[in-house]
């Protein structure tokens, strides 16, 4: 038998794919910024915070890391309205991705903080830096540098995971593929193209973050 693949009807719809890819990137960018913030805060709490905070951050991390992203997303989008919190697909997607990335980022950044040599902190103390100054200027930048590759990988995993957000009608890349195949019934072709776009985005984001990291995140004054 012959398999007839016809990519043309899908390619004609390229603006939809482009728009979807832009949403996927946008979601990832917001989740990265917010999630890294949560990650830094919780990593501090787990490594240096008072005991109740340490415990709370631990529960958060383990709860998120041991449940599937799709269940977290459905809990937020379908479950929370029952408790009176109504969210649009966009806010629900951002919230779920942020919370998810935050938990993984906590563990990753914590590993970087724990590996800080004791002498660095003592050196900071001897310069009369406050604890906050020591954390942000002495401990954090080299810690981020140490774990940057792991953090970048996790951000990409979250981006690929965001394909699930199409299930709550967030109009990202997988949703665009779904829309295209519902118009022309070229399901396989539509998903192949969308998958290739994801692959390209993954490569692109990795390159971009590897470039951004040393220049804007842990470079310059604090860098070790």
């Amino acid at each position: 038998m012959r398999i007839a693949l016809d990519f043309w009807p899908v390619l004609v719809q390229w603006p939809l794919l482009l728009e979807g890819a832009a949403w996927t990137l946008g979601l990832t960018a917001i989740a990265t910024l917010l999630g890294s913030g949560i990650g830094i805060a919780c990593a501090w709490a787990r490594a240096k915070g008072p005991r109740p905070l340490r415990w709370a951050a631990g529960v958060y991390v383990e709860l998120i890391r041991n449940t599937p992203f799709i269940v977290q997303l459905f809990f937020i989008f379908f479950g929370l309205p029952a408790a009176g919190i109504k969210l649009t697909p966009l806010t629900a997607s951002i919230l779920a991705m942020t919370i998810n990335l935050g938990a993984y980022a906590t563990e990753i950044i914590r590993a970087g903080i724990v590996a800080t040599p004791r002498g660095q902190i003592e050196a900071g103390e001897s310069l009369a830096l406050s604890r906050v100054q020591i954390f942000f200027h002495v401990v954090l930048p080299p810690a981020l540098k140490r774990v940057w590759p792991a953090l970048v990988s996790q951000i990409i995993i979250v981006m690929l995971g965001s394909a699930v957000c199409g299930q709550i009608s967030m109009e990202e890349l997988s949703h665009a593929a779904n829309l295209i195949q519902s118009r022309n019934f070229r399901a396989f072709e539509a998903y192949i193209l969308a998958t290739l776009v994801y692959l390209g985005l993954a490569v692109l984001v990795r390159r971009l973050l590897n470039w951004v990291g040393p220049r804007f995140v842990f470079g310059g004054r604090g860098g070790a």
Partner: protein
Amino acid sequence: MVDFTLWDILRNLLLAARWTIVLSLIAFIGGGVMGLVLLVLRLGRNRFADMVIGGYVQLFQGTPLLMQLFLLYFGIALFGVDTSPWVAACMALTLYTSAYLTEIWRGCVEAVPRGQWEASASLALSFGQQLSHIILPQALKIAVPPTVGFLVQVIKGTALASVIGFVELTKAGGMIANATYEPLLVYGFVALIYFAICFPISLVAGSLERKLHVGQR
């Protein structure tokens, strides 16, 4: 109108969790066997095989699992075979697992010192003998913790099979939430059941990891 008690909801979810576990085991065992074959092919110092398998790993690690599921679900149908969500989910998760495991294990094999290969070669052991008697037993020790850790990722991955209509824990949760109008409660239970399955495995993986590195402290 049928009334669901709390116990009805929980019981049905636990029954559905069986399929999550069955699917995870099929994917993990199938992916493990396939990952091992790919690993041996890759270690055979054949440039071409190394490149192809490297590309295979990149492809599965660089694309969403959801897309892989869709592609297999619609792709098998192109061959004129009538696919069920079962077959598509098992195949997609097996391929996905094999790509990750072969990469994890390759790292473990590379952690075995080069001299071990050379020493065994100097004893005139064949490639198969080198692998089975010298290299793999040593790599196995390092491979256990990350492999157990990856099992958690497979179990969480099976939740995506719900999207192509495979009735496992997540899909069952959605159906029960629609029938009971209690989405918060039902998805809360679903999350807790996943947690109850995955958390012990994470703990085991973590303690194996610590035991392995105990000499390095």
